[in-house]
């Protein structure tokens, strides 16, 4: 039986609650009366994954079956989500690989020779061969990688971009030329959270900076309330307008999948259990892990967490026309993540875990930690934010991982130079974005190394723009004061200190809500 998500009210019977903080966690005694939002337990999985994939391809929504769309001599492009999804990475075999294999079997049967596979990484870093192999599986990798028919999308390869036109609001639509000129573009997605998928897949995943700048900016993000609710998200409205333009040029067969929320494999399941249901074994595991992590050097702690592979189960797969498919996908996502929350509170508490979309096999630098907290988690609401306008966010993260210079070179300069000038997303965007987006060295690293695009740190900062605009104060518990100070935030050692500091903004007895994630949850605030 799957138990729904619910809101706990901390009372004298409540044990300490688990709060993630980077490469570790702490057990926190919350004040009596604190509301704690727990996500639903894993919803039932699809009994036979291969059969479900087959069924989706043969009986798509508002589209002809895939076999009917495949013709000899056609150009077929298969695009797929990159390693930013799902989080943590999925235990092999990845669902995308299983779907791509079936699509390719149908294509082979139909006599399609011209097939290319492209990772829809937009301005994310190029994935390594091993990372791509993990996603698509060994068979697909061996058949296409050596021939150069399986590759990362390059948003700076001017010769291989196609400008499809502009939307009615004058937004450029520029995507991968190969995708745009294909007879059929099959997109394989993992819809981990509600912001993913839909027209965001092709319209953003295969787009260049020229296209992305229209919605990836502070102004749009402040008006995306939230970006986890595509009907009320200015970013998604823009992506949907662009999707209409894409639709005029290329036939897209969208395949969207949803997974449950078993994010922590054995022996770390206690991290997903409700604390008062911890067995003696769970308590021992928590104690042992905390003390073990305290003894480990940073490198080993990093490995301990980043080697985790989630044992996700498929909860749904839909294929066919983009919007019709996405509508069904969101229903599944909501089933797994939505929790009703009654009203806003003065203080929002969030534990930032070790992993976000942009530090897979990498480091959670202070900018990414901010993006996770004030971007993803803050925006994980439907209706209204969990915290009231002018309220306080208390975030847990040590902010001490530093920067990975291979993956995030432009972040270092953004942190050292841009944030030193201003932390206002609007100001930094207007003043510095162009310079970073067109810097030849960053472009070179993006194209030839494994670096995120020069403009990427700006996007992270924009992601947090709505949160920064909405909140009266942001306090990091256990955070490095220097890093937090650089970003315009304050730090506290303990929750008690943080609440003391927050009292100047929200008074001495504020209402507090703690979002108990991961696993991810979506607060439906009434």
């Amino acid at each position, binding site marked *: 039986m799957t138990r729904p998500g619910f809101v706990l009210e901390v009372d004298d019977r409540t044990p*300490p609650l688990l709060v993630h903080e980077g490469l570790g966690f702490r057990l926190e005694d919350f004040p009596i009366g604190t509301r704690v939002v727990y996500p639903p337990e894993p919803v039932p999985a699809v009994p036979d994954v291969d059969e479900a994939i087959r069924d989706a391809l043969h009986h798509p929504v508002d589209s002809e079956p895939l076999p009917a769309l495949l013709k000899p001599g056609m150009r077929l492009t298969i695009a797929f989500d990159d390693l930013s999804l799902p989080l943590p990475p999925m235990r092999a075999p990845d669902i995308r690989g299983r779907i791509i294999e079936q699509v390719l079997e149908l294509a082979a049967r139909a006599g399609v020779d011209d097939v290319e596979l492209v990772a829809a990484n937009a301005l994310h870093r190029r994935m390594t061969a091993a990372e791509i192999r993990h996603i698509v599986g060994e068979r697909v990798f061996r058949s296409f990688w050596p021939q150069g028919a399986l590759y990362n999308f390059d948003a700076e390869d001017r010769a291989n971009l196609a400008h499809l036109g502009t939307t009615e609001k004058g937004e450029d639509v520029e995507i991968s030329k190969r995708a745009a000129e294909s007879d059929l573009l099959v997109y394989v997605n993992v819809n981990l959270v509600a912001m993913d998928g839909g027209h965001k897949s092709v319209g953003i995943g295969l787009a260049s900076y020229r296209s992305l700048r229209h919605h990836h900016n502070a102004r749009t993000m402040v008006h995306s309330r939230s970006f986890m609710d595509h009907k009320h998200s200015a970013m998604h409205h823009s992506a949907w307008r662009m999707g209409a333009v894409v639709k005029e040029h290329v036939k897209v067969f969208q395949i969207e999948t949803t997974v449950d929320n078993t994010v922590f494999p054995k022996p770390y399941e206690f991290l997903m259990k409700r604390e*008062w249901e911890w067995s003696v074994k769970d308590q021992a595991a928590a104690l042992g892990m905390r003390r073990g992590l305290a003894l480990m050097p940073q490198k080993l702690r990093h490995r301990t967490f980043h080697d985790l592979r989630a044992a996700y189960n498929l909860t749904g797969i839909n294929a066919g026309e983009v919007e019709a498919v996405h509508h069904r996908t969101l229903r599944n996502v909501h089933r797994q993540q939505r929790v009703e929350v009654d009203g806003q509170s003065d203080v929002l508490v969030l534990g930032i875990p070790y992993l976000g979309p942009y530090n897979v096999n990498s480091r959670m630098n202070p900018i990414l930690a901010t993006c996770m907290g004030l971007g993803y988690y803050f925006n994980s609401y439907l209706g209204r934010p969990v915290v009231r306008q002018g309220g306080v966010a208390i975030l847990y993260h040590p902010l001490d991982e530093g920067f990975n210079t291979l993956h995030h070179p432009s972040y270092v300069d953004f942190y050292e130079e841009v944030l030193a000038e201003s932390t206002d997303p609007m100001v930094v965007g207007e003043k510095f974005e162009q310079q970073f987006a067109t810097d030849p060295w960053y472009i070179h690293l993006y194209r030839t190394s494994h670096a995120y695009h020069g403009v990427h740190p700006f996007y992270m900062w924009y992601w947090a723009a709505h949160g920064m605009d909405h909140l009266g104060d942001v306090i990091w518990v256990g955070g490095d004061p220097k890093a937090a100070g650089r970003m315009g935030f304050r730090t506290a050692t303990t929750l008690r200190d943080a609440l003391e500091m927050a009292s100047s903004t929200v008074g001495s007895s504020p209402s507090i809500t703690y979002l108990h994630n991961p696993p991810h949850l979506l607060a439906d605030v009434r």
Partner: protein
Amino acid sequence: MGFLQDTIADVRQVKRGWRWGHRSQVPRSAEPFVPPSSPNVYPNDWSRTPAAAAVRELAQKAALEPLFRSQVRARAEGVDVLDRLTGPVIFAANHASHLDTPLILLSLPDEWRRRTAVAAAADYFFDTWWRAVGSSLLFNTLPIDRRGGSLSTTPGDVLADGWSLVIFPEGTRSRDGWMGSFRLGAAFLAVEHGVPVVPVAHRGTFAAMPRGAGWPGRGRRTLRVRFGDPLVPGEDESVRDFARRVRAGVAQLLDEDATSWYAALRRAASGTTPDPAGPEVAEWRRVWESTQPPEAEPRRAWG
């Protein structure tokens, strides 16, 4: 803080948070979301074999009794009623503390004690193997399902085998020391198997070790237990009526213990026995009154 201090702090936090040594608790707001626990009852038929009885005899006489007497002063009255009986019987007692069971068992004559089992909540005493083994060996407990489920060995089987049974018809320990309503189980068994019920009333156990306490309070408090005349169900008497009579029997014994045999008898005859459910006053006053110790024994200077 160093690693060691941090470790100590962590262990302390987990010990306190998860109530080591006590049953874990569910936050009130989470109670609707806790699934009903699966009936995982460890069978204990073995505990009524001669070998287990021998181990129990040793445990009760060599460990339980000296320990019990070192912590409390216990005095039993009316045990002589058992001389007139040949067994098996059902001992129906009020329930205020975990001390009730050793108090009653250790008050019984040895030959009765050796043939007496204690009906204990299956979901509380038989949910883990070690609790099942421990309580069976020490108290000769028998799992009964207070939620109405079915078990492999029923109390009826045990009665039929000639064992007497201690049953607490309230089904759970009192929260304020006063007596709650009686369930029908004891009366039903008595009617069904034609076994007499011996009402048992005791005072002082709530004050000595109330619900939530893990050990008797300091100072060797006085406990008193009183056995009443056996009650036999009438031929046409319904289970419900008989249960009411059993409860009245216990109430009368409590009255007798607080006053005197004759006064209690008079009050019972005129229907003015004090309600053992206690006065309808604020909770603290109920607790206050129920924790008044029975008048202490005059301490002897020597001998």
